[in-house]
């Protein structure tokens, strides 16, 4: 097999190249073309085996659309997504279904993502029934195994979701995602619905599972500190594009893009007293009819004339650390 060969070159679990996703809105007038929401405008990234990438950004920046595109829950309007070397959009529906074993998702809301009328055993076994050809005994064994690995009791499998708290429900959702032994788990805001003390338990669990099973994470979050804690790499998105991407330690310590700087600056710190800080004015622009130039130009404190004329591309500022800004050179010096 080519496995060893692939590993020798570069072992990427996911590779997304130039992913584009646009939504056409209903026509408002017969005589004008319909408006288009540009949710993703050419997003590229890859995650190597056993590593984790955090995608951060504000609402409407396209981070959840990106998660759905990677999960093949949305058709792409351009570009491609490869998981474990297979191009997802080229697969037949049957082959795609088979492939889904390798990538599973944890959703944001643990209250909405578990069927209230099914017992935990059935919820966790569902991906196995749908995707794997296992006998009943094997299935039960697998369920017991993942339930134990997320720290729930063996007796919990006969309970209904309403008998659990938010943190425990998120553990069930994680167990369900682990059931098919995937190599990639896409987690869309996995802890944002949880209380602080419970959030810490779930974040530790995600870390432990990675150590134990070597799963790869694509984690979507609006909380920068959560991403810094869990992820090796971070990608900052703004209006459908990645504006900065690099090792988490590096990006958080030396942010280069003005948007990343503003975002980090805006996070309230656990230090008493009011701070005078740079505030971004205005709102995130609507992703309909984006301007020609840099999408961040309207809110950028350092905007120049050329920012409104052309769109900057992601360029290396240091090894593995990229930023899409015309002023990159100035920021790093």
């Amino acid at each position, binding site marked *: 097999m080519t496995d060893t060969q692939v590993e020798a070159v570069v072992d990427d679990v996911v590779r997304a190249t130039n992913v584009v996703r646009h939504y056409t809105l209903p026509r408002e007038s017969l005589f004008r073309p319909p408006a288009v929401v540009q949710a993703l405008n050419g997003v590229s990234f890859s995650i190597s085996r056993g590593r*984790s990438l955090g995608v951060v950004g*504000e*609402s409407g920046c396209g981070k959840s659309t990106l998660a759905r595109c990677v999960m093949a829950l949305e058709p792409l309007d351009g570009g491609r997504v490869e998981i474990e070397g297979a191009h997802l959009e080229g697969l037949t529906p049957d082959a795609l279904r088979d492939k889904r074993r390798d990538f599973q998702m944890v959703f944001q809301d643990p209250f909405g993502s578990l069927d209230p009328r099914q017992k935990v055993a059935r919820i966790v076994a569902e991906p196995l029934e749908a995707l794997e050809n296992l006998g009943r005994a094997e299935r039960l064994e697998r369920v017991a195994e993942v339930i134990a690995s997320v720290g729930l009791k063996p007796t919990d499998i006969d309970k209904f979701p309403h008998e659990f*708290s938010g*943190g*425990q429900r998120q553990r069930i959702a994680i167990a369900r995602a682990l059931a098919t032994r995937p190599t990639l788990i896409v987690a869309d805001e996995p802890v944002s619905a949880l*209380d*602080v*003390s*419970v*959030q*810490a*338990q779930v*974040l*530790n669990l995600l*870390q432990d599972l990675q150590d134990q099973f070597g799963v790869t994470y694509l984690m979507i979050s*609006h*909380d*920068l*500190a*959560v991403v*810094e*804690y*869990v*992820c*090796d790499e971070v990608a900052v998105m703004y209006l459908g594009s990645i504006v900065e991407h690099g*090792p*988490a*330690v590096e990006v*958080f*310590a030396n942010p280069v893009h003005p948007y990343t700087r*503003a*975002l*980090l600056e*805006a*996070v*309230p*710190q*656990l*230090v*008493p*007293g*009011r*701070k005078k*800080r740079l*505030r*971004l*004015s205005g*709102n*995130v622009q609507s992703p309909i009819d984006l301007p020609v130039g840099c999408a961040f130009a309207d809110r950028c404190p350092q905007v120049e004339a050329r920012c409104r004329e052309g769109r900057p591309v992601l360029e290396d500022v240091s090894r593995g650390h990229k930023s899409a800004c015309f002023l990159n050179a100035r920021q790093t010096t």
Partner: protein
Amino acid sequence: MALLEVKNLDVTLATSRGPARAVRNLSFDLDRGQTLGIVGESGCGKSMTALALLGLLPENGVTTGSISLGGQDLLALDEDAMCGVRGNRISMIFQEPMTSLNPLHTIGRQVTEPMLIHQGMTRDEARAEAVRLLERVGIASARQRLDNYPHQLSGGQRQRVMIAMALSCKPDVLIADEPTTALDVTIQGQILDLIADLVSESGMALILISHDLGVIAETVDRVLVMYGGAGVETGPTASLFQHLAHPYTQGLFAAVPKLGSGGKGKSRTRLSTIPGLVPELADLPPGCTFADRCDLADDKCAGTMPTVHDVANDAGHRVACLKPDDAKSRMATSEAGA
């Protein structure tokens, strides 16, 4: 006498599982121009406290104790009299700007309503005042916005409209219940700055309720930490964050992922967690509400009401705990270790 004095406030909700003490024996006071932050996790009673102050508890709720505003006992007022206080002398900014504005009425109608009711303004006066308020809270082309409906505004703008409504009658006390939880982080900063500016401008008192320790640390002078309906620690913000006297405050602080900690890349440290779950209000022990999750607790804690101690001689920094010395020495060792 302070502007707002809350003494021994108890809120009991009749639930199918028996009475749940949503707030127990809570006391605090607040003067003009002061800001108090109430912090805690879901179900700790922070929102119930706010609703009790406004007389807006659900029908199965019973309040005892006293809430006095400028010498007047609010709990003794009947509903008609309370209507004169609510939105007028105490007003509130709710968490969810998407659902707390009425989608069927224009912004103008909703902002002018309290002024028409409480201040007897004419429609024209109220409209002029509404334009001034909307401009003050940072809404561009305010005059045109008056005729917009809530769905035509973004989340941040809607929260600004909520703030304008809350300020319209120049209240003595402003309660902000998680005012930025539904907003993006860059917008959150703008709104917190706005609230802080308005408080220092008008001299009103502010109660800011939040689960986010960072928001609390940066916005208020004094903090009240609640757990299971009880106030477990209160004090000036600087002193509280320096000493972290209650085991729960310590646990909460340690469980927050902190930005700039180096995170995974450097050390792969684990977050410290508080074992167990946030308890159901109906199942709380009679003594310290935190006893079953506290690693310092012994048999005595669950059965005995915790005593209140002063912390570090700081004015007004108090902790309700039976083992404050153990908690303190633990903090000292963890600091020495770090």
